[in-house]
């Protein structure tokens, strides 16, 4: 880390905010930008570690704390600022992948709305105070508070800190802290502790032959999503050996959309189905009471007889979730997945030690009764994440002194009396315990940006002023964890290199409550009264329970299912929409016994007609400029339903009235048409048609080339036979891919009378024309999670455009969140298209996800129409966009059949404008290697050309060639399902060149003769096996 007392010399040169727009202005005025007086500020003292070679990044191995799973990340820092997070390939949990929320941690670190220093409430106003005052005050408040008279509500995290915290609390004679995690599925944890003695067995989908999920959204927020996605994708990519996936639940979540079969059932009836599958209870009764199609259930049971091992997962957040989880564990045991697909001995330790919701509710009661004198809140926002019916705010009001360690102003910290802003995890030391045997280390990637301090250090300083000082001799929390660390300081510093180390750090002294919760009698599913709906509430895949809402990337990332951003929505079934006579965007009111919420309707075929669903995460009253006043919080309409035995809060399953409100709130969606109109954009191949490659090679060529039976994946207007199965070995689309420019494969490139063919000559010394950068996207792996989108935003300085303050000038929607997206002005270089196939009226419809980015065509239609060579074809096969040459005719975009070019409508990249996307200090996140585009310029995916050139420079510096698979693009690196592969398709040494030759490979719109550099691999569909006669 560098001496931040001097502004890092790099920053100014690199945040090219005015580059294009203002260069225009400047050239108009004074002829040349560099006439500006610009200062060069050197370091005062050159950091002696060679980490800080100017213009070269340093990577710090640390741990992501966005959710409890604690994946390993590499924080890329340059000139003392951290601007990018990437998965740590060494890490056993996420193996180099990283989800959208993890990547957005940077925007939490550099968030413009962070607390800049400690403050306390004086009357109704906030007063800034010094840390000394703050600590003295806290020490004095501590005196005289004993035992349960204080409550410490800490965000659940694994590893050292909980232990430290309990130690500190007990040293002051206070009760152990509550480890609260609104995202953790408590019912499953309780059941697992009972069945396996561990909180969360690791899941290996590859071992399963059939996956049955009872509302467990393991690709989103259920459990540790990244490792689950990795494993799931691996399983699904195994072609004929891949497991089928059945999803049972009232609503098709992202996970549900990835299922081969969806069995819609009323929320709460999952348990009945699970039990019926075991054998007790007739399927038909269950079908009638759960509303699930009986034949589907019968098919499933008969399928279960053959499929083994079958993996069952439960995640329905309903009243009888605990019993469901137990039943599912029984199913797993009986269908032999325990030990094979479900690995209790490789438990994910990160979820251990979380308190039950009941404990939190109980603490609230004690507050309400005035039994709590002192409240600590750290990293959680119960006012927002607990049902309003729980009356958190009132309870807090009864507490005389409340201390918040929150880094951002939020609904809870606003109610507190003393704010001791914690360092961001990327500024802090720590040890996490993702797996039972693996520690994940956390080190600062950056000096604290503001006058904040790590809670550990604060507590130690407090201890120094109290009776407990004797037990806290160390000066900082860092020293404390090094004391705890097996092997001491040397081992610790050694381990920091990799960021992970085997071993186990001492956990909490006081284990959480005894885990033998009694399974309560199954509450019968109360039937719906006339006109009533089941209310399903689920965490937003990106915003989670709401902690992600202040990060523009996550707000802007379209929800993978609804494709709505910067807005809340209510999912209703098309038939309901017809009945209520509403269109998407019509405002609905959902009213329950607890309260009501108003939000626009999203008409979604993936939900039961008797159910409405709302996502958590939005509707913040206080959480900074990117979250406040955006969307609604469904918890205001959710009654408190606590499981008597397991003490788990059930958010879904309440009965609700749905009224139309006479208002229209246009949906901020990126969706045009949800059907692909047989244009062969997202193609599939039935698993039955797949032959493994060796099987194929054994066949005589003629047979091998026999046309595969395909659903409807022939491109709409692909005339010739070849177009219909580009996957065949001697396919003729590869020449376009094998050479930089399609014309090169077709012979003539530069006119005969040209003196030289320049760098396009294959024998040119630079060898550029020998390369062909290309990408494959395996739709069988892609789950549509959209982590790639965030990765692209992070790497390429793509501005977010949806914040309310950016909408002031957008015609028609002034000041409305997402106005620019309503106008279609989103800048995302990469989008994930979600197409429905089949009949959306019933539950059998299929969803396909297609990541769509610049295809870097060999014959790019966008190029010949540009009047100024602002876009052209580079010798190494890139479709280059030269921003500073672009005059903005936008002709290229008109001529792009894939519509992947984005125009900078406002000064999103110009610091002096209202639309500026990176208000200070967010601008520190800008990637120094990439231009920030000004207004009036076309931009698009570059295949991360900066990484290509950087790799070339590195190779040149070390006097070697670029090694195969030496680097990859940002999206490919982040992809948690490893669907994206990038490389040089012209060289057989790169993985991509082999994957591109896969029999499932195809181009989008091949009939346009564009010779795209992106090869998609057809999604594999697993049709249900013919029902065994025994069934029913």
């Amino acid at each position, binding site marked *: 880390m560098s001496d931040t*007392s*001097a502004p890092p*010399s*790099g920053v100014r*040169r*690199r945040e*090219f905010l*005015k*580059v*294009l727009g203002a*260069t225009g202005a400047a*050239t*108009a005025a004074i*002829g*040349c*930008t*560099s*006439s500006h*007086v*610009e*200062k*060069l*500020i*050197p*370091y*005062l*003292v*050159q950091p002696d570690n060679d980490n800080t*070679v*100017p*213009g*070269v990044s340093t990577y710090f191995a640390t741990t992501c704390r966005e959710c409890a799973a604690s994946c390993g990340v590499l924080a890329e820092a340059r000139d003392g600022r951290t601007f990018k997070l990437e998965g740590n390939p060494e890490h056993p949990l996420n193996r180099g992948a990283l989800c959208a929320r993890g990547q957005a941690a940077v925007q939490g670190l550099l968030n413009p709305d962070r607390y800049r220093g400690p403050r306390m409430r004086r009357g109704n106003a906030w007063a800034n105070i010094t840390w000394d005052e703050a600590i003295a005050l806290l020490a004095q408040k501590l005196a005289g508070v004993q035992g349960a008279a204080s409550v410490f509500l800490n965000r659940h995290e694994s590893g050292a800190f909980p232990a430290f915290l309990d130690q500190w609390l007990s040293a002051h004679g206070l009760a152990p802290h509550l480890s609260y995690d609104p995202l953790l599925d408590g019912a499953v944890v309780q059941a697992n502790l009972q069945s396996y003695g561990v909180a969360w067995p690791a899941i290996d989908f590859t071992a399963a032959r059939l996956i049955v999920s009872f509302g467990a959204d393991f690709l989103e927020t259920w459990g540790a999503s990244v490792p689950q996605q990795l494993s799931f994708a691996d399983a699904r990519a195994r072609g004929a050996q891949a497991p089928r996936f059945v999803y049972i639940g009232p609503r098709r979540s992202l996970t549900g959309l990835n299922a081969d079969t969806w069995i819609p059932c009323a929320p709460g009836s999952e348990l009945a189905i699970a039990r019926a599958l075991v054998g007790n209870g007739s399927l038909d009764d269950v079908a009638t009471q759960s509303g699930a199609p009986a034949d589907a259930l019968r098919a499933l049971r008969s399928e279960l007889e053959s499929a083994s091992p079958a993996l069952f997962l439960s995640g329905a957040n309903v009243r009888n979730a605990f019993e469901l989880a137990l039943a599912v564990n029984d199913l797993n045991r009986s269908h032999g997945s325990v030990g094979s697909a479900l690995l209790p001995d490789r438990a994910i330790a990160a979820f251990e030690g979380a308190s039950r919701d009941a404990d939190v509710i109980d603490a609230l009661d004690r507050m309400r009764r005035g039994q709590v004198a002192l409240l600590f809140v750290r990293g959680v926002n119960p006012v927002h994440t607990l049902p309003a019916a729980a009356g958190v705010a009132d309870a807090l009001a009864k507490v005389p002194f409340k201390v918040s360690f929150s880094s951002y102003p939020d609904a809870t910290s606003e109610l507190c009396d003393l704010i001791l802003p914690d360092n961001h995890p990327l500024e802090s030391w720590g040890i996490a315990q993702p797996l039972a045997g693996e520690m994940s280390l956390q080190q600062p990637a950056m000096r604290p940006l503001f006058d904040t301090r790590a809670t550990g250090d604060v507590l130690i300083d407090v201890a120094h002023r109290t009776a407990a000082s004797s037990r806290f001799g160390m000066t900082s929390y860092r020293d404390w964890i090094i004391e705890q660390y097996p092997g001491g300081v040397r081992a610790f510093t050694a381990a920091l290199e990799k960021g992970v180390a085997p071993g186990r750090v001492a956990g909490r002294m006081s284990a959480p409550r005894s885990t033998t919760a009694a399974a309560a009698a199954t509450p019968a599913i109360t039937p719906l009264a006339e006109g009533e709906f089941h209310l399903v509430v689920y965490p937003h895949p990106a915003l989670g329970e709401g902690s992600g809402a202040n990060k523009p990337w996550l707000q802007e990332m379209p929800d993978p299912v609804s494709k709505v951003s910067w807005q809340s929505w209510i999912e209703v079934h098309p038939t309901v929409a017809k009945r209520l006579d509403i269109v998407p965007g019509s405002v609905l009111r959902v009213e329950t016994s607890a309260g009501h919420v108003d939000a626009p309707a999203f008409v979604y075929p993936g939900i039961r007609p008797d159910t409405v669903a709302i996502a958590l995460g939005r509707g913040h009253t206080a959480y900074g400029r990117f979250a406040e006043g955006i969307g609604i919080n469904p918890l205001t309409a959710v009654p408190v339903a606590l499981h008597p035995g397991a003490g788990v809060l059930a958010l879904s399953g309440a009965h609700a009235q749905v009224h139309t409100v006479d208002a229209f709130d246009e949906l901020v969606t990126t969706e045009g048409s949800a059907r692909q109109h047989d244009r062969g954009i997202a193609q599939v191949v039935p698993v039955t048609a797949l032959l493994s490659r060796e099987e194929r090679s054994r066949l005589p060529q003629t047979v091998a080339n026999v046309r595969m039976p395909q659903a409807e994946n022939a491109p709409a207007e692909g005339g010739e036979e070849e177009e219909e199965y580009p996957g065949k070995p001697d396919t003729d689309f590869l020449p376009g891919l094998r050479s930089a420019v399609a014309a090169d494969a077709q012979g003539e490139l530069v006119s005969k009378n040209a003196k030289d063919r*320049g*760098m396009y000559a294959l024998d040119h*010394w*630079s060898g*550029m024309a020998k390369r062909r950068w290309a990408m494959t996207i395996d739709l069988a792996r892609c789950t549509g999670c959209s982590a790639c989108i965030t990765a692209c935003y992070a790497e390429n300085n793509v501005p977010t455009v949806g914040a309310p303050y950016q909408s002031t000038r957008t015609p028609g929607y002034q000041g409305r969140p997402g106005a620019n997206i309503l106008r279609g002005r989103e800048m995302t270089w990469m989008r994930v298209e979600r197409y429905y196939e089949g009949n959306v009226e019933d539950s059998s419809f299929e969803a396909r996800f297609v990541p769509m980015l610049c295809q870097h065509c060999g014959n790019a239609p966008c190029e010949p129409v540009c009047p100024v*060579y602002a876009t*052209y074809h*580079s*010798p190494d096969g*890139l479709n*280059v966009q*030269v*921003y*500073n*040459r672009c005059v903005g005719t936008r002709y290229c975009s008109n001529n792009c059949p894939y519509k992947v070019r984005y125009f900078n409508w406002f000064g999103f990249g110009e610091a002096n404008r209202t639309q500026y996307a990176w208000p200070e200090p967010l601008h520190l996140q800008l990637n120094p*290697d*990439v*231009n920030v585009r000004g207004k009036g310029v076309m931009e698009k995916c*570059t295949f991360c*050309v*900066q990484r290509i*050139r950087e790799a070339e*420079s590195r190779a*040149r*510096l070390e006097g070697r060639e670029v090694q195969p698979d030496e680097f990859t693009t940002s999206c490919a690196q982040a992809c948690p399902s490893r669907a994206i592969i990038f490389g040089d398709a012209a060289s057989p040494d790169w993985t991509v060149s082999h994957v591109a030759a896969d029999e499932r490979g195809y181009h989008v719109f091949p009939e346009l003769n564009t010779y795209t550099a992106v090869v998609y691999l057809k999604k594999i569909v697993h049709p249900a096996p013919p029902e065994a006669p025994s069934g029913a």
Partner: protein
Amino acid sequence: MTMRKWVVVPGFLALAAAAIVLSAYSGASTPQGRKPQQPIAFPHPTHVAGLGMNCLYCHFAANKAPDPGLPAVNTCMGCHLVVGPSRPASQFGPARTSAEITKLQQYWNAKKPIPWIRIHKVPDYVQFPHMRHVNAGVSCQTCHGEIQNMPVVYQAKPLSMGWCINCHTGRSNPPFKARYDCSTCHY
């Protein structure tokens, strides 16, 4: 026939005016020769020509990083703790006290970095990796001019695109081999 001139002359004037405006507008005028006043009049000749110091001693990263590296104040003080302001008579001149070194020490004692004024700058949308050029045998002087003989540094070369391309396409003397593909510098 005076009339002919009457008709033709304004035409020529208009054309000339247009040409001038266009060339000025298109940024043809580069800040070549800019010679700003620096906070400390650092004499390159004394250090490079006089003491024969290597450029890389201060600009330590020029051969291994995109940025050449700006010497930290403590790099200067490394010598100037010893070499104080008061100078005995030497081949550099009679005995005197150097005001500049005094300034340097003031900055150091005040723990303030020196706010140098930037002279050589390519537009922000140009990626200029120093190491690629240095390792390719392009001397510092090629782009920065005879800096070792500049008492006050000024921009010796236009640093315009045409000027870059001239080398990249091998029309320079001595000729260099370099890519002239747009995406080499612009991304």
